[in-house]
């Protein structure tokens, strides 16, 4: 049953050093406030899973939280490189990190399989790609009915998943809408989960925009619900605020240089309190 916690307490309780963590949100609903709290609490040796590392993992990597990153597309969408990711991979700053890379299709299926409690995902994938040469977690199986060779990847089963969503109700049930990504899968696949939300309402099912098939994650399938207003910024929350595409472009400049990055991190994360991140 979801507990309502502060951002500080949720991260302190569920994100251990050395943990496998998935902070998801496909472009939309990226849990930046929670990511910053992980940086502030100086968590170390994390295995970070995300389809698109995006700025959130660029920041965590640059801050020295990551031991390993599992991903499928590691760029700044529409802008260019993630310079902190590149600096870590190419030059080992602030320290060397391991990477394990997949395709989007495989990672999406791996999240789906994790939610489905399976050890593996099967897909028609990686045909002719050299990714299987550099990722020993990509294997191939033979269909027992047709003989077709299909790719298999291990399912994603994080220690903790962190996602952002529009709103929760008093029972901790969470509404996700718009680009829902692999948010639900991330929560269901994980041993523990933290969901940050823009607001709490009384009852989701009596909201004017309630629909019988909306994506609602029940409170009993979530460990902690945290109010974090604008908790996805500079990503966005459909119905609340837009993606700050200008900041995504500015990040290219901030992150390109170790010193400007460090200064940014000091000013905007270390010296910001978790309540400045919208923590209620």
């Amino acid at each position, binding site marked *: 049953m979801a507990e309502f916690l502060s951002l500080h307490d949720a991260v302190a309780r569920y994100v251990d050093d050395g943990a496998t963590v998935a902070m998801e949100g*496909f*472009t*939309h609903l990226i849990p930046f406030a929670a990511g910053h709290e992980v940086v502030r609490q100086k968590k170390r040796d994390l295995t970070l899973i995300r*389809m*698109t590392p995006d700025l959130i993992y660029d920041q965590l990597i640059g801050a020295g939280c990551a031991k390993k990153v599992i*991903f*499928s*597309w*590691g*760029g700044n*969408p*529409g*802008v260019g*490189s*993630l310079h902190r*990711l*590149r600096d870590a*991979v*190419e030059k080992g700053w602030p320290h060397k990190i391991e990477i394990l*890379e*997949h*395709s*989007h*299709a*495989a990672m*999406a*299926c791996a*999240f*789906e399989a994790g939610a489905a409690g399976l050890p593996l995902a099967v*897909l*028609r*994938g*990686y*045909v*002719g*790609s*050299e*990714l299987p040469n*550099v990722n020993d977690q990509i294997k191939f199986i033979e269909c027992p009915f047709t003989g*077709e060779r299909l790719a298999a990847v291990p399912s994603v089963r994080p220690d903790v998943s962190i996602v952002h969503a529009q709103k929760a109700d008093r029972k901790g049930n969470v509404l996700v809408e*718009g*680009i*829902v*990504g*692999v948010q*639900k*899968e991330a929560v269901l696949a994980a041993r523990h989960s933290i969901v940050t939300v823009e607001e709490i309402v009384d009852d989701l099912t009596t909201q004017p925009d309630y629909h019988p098939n909306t*994506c609602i994650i029940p409170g009993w399938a979530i460990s902690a619900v945290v109010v974090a207003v604008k908790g996805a910024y500079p990503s*966005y929350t*459909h119905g609340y605020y*837009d*993606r*700050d*595409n*200008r900041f*995504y*472009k500015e990040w290219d400049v901030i992150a390109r240089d170790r010193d400007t990055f460090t200064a940014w991190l000091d000013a905007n994360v270390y010296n910001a309190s978790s309540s400045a991140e919208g923590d209620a």
Partner: protein
Amino acid sequence: MTDYTSGEMMTVTAARALENGMTCFVGIGLPSEAANLARLTHAPDVVLIYESGTLQTKPEVLPLSIGDGELCESALTTVAVPEMFRYWLQGGKVNVGFLGTAQIDRFANLNTTLIGDYHDPKVRLPGGGGAPEIATNAGEVFITLKHSKRAFVKDVDFVTTLGFGRDGKGRDGVPNIGKGPTRVITDLCVMKPDPETKELTVVSLHPGVSRDDVIEATGWDIRFAKQLESTAMPEAHELDILRELKARTDRKHAGA
């Protein structure tokens, strides 16, 4: 005739490759620009699908990212990302995958992973994203990128995404696989794979571009079709619509 840039030439030509009613899985950047231009000109019923789960979307401005709010707000519906890759792409509902790339080789293999050695990369690129399965599960693939010796190499450093394999035979005998890259549209020309060898061959030169221009911008000994065509110039209304689209986009992204 209006003046136009080589970039506009490329986008208009890429847009024209899409037919009305096609279902197109759209990559971000140049493919997205071309696909939306097609939708706003000759192909109003082209179905645009982005990997963020936005199905049949009609963005008013070009998205910066693959998951801008604009895409969801103008979509017929938005599905979860696993469903997008499983039901819509792998399920065979996509006629054409429209991709960009960092590197491409003579057999249209794409590299978006890295330059140099995998374990000690000179330049780490973003990685595969949706491309590896778009390239094999879509009915066919269009590729668009700017022509340069750095991008058009004899052999890619890494095959992130299958074109026709390192020997041109990478799709032979593989069940349930699409036709692969059927055309590559650059700012200089249009290339298609040779029907036999699958080696990329120039089939059409853009107006004002010479064979030597293409040869100089290509990292292998590029071949030209016997019946070399001249690409049709952009029409005024295509340029108008493209420029309006880009102006709207710039205003929107600057104002965020």
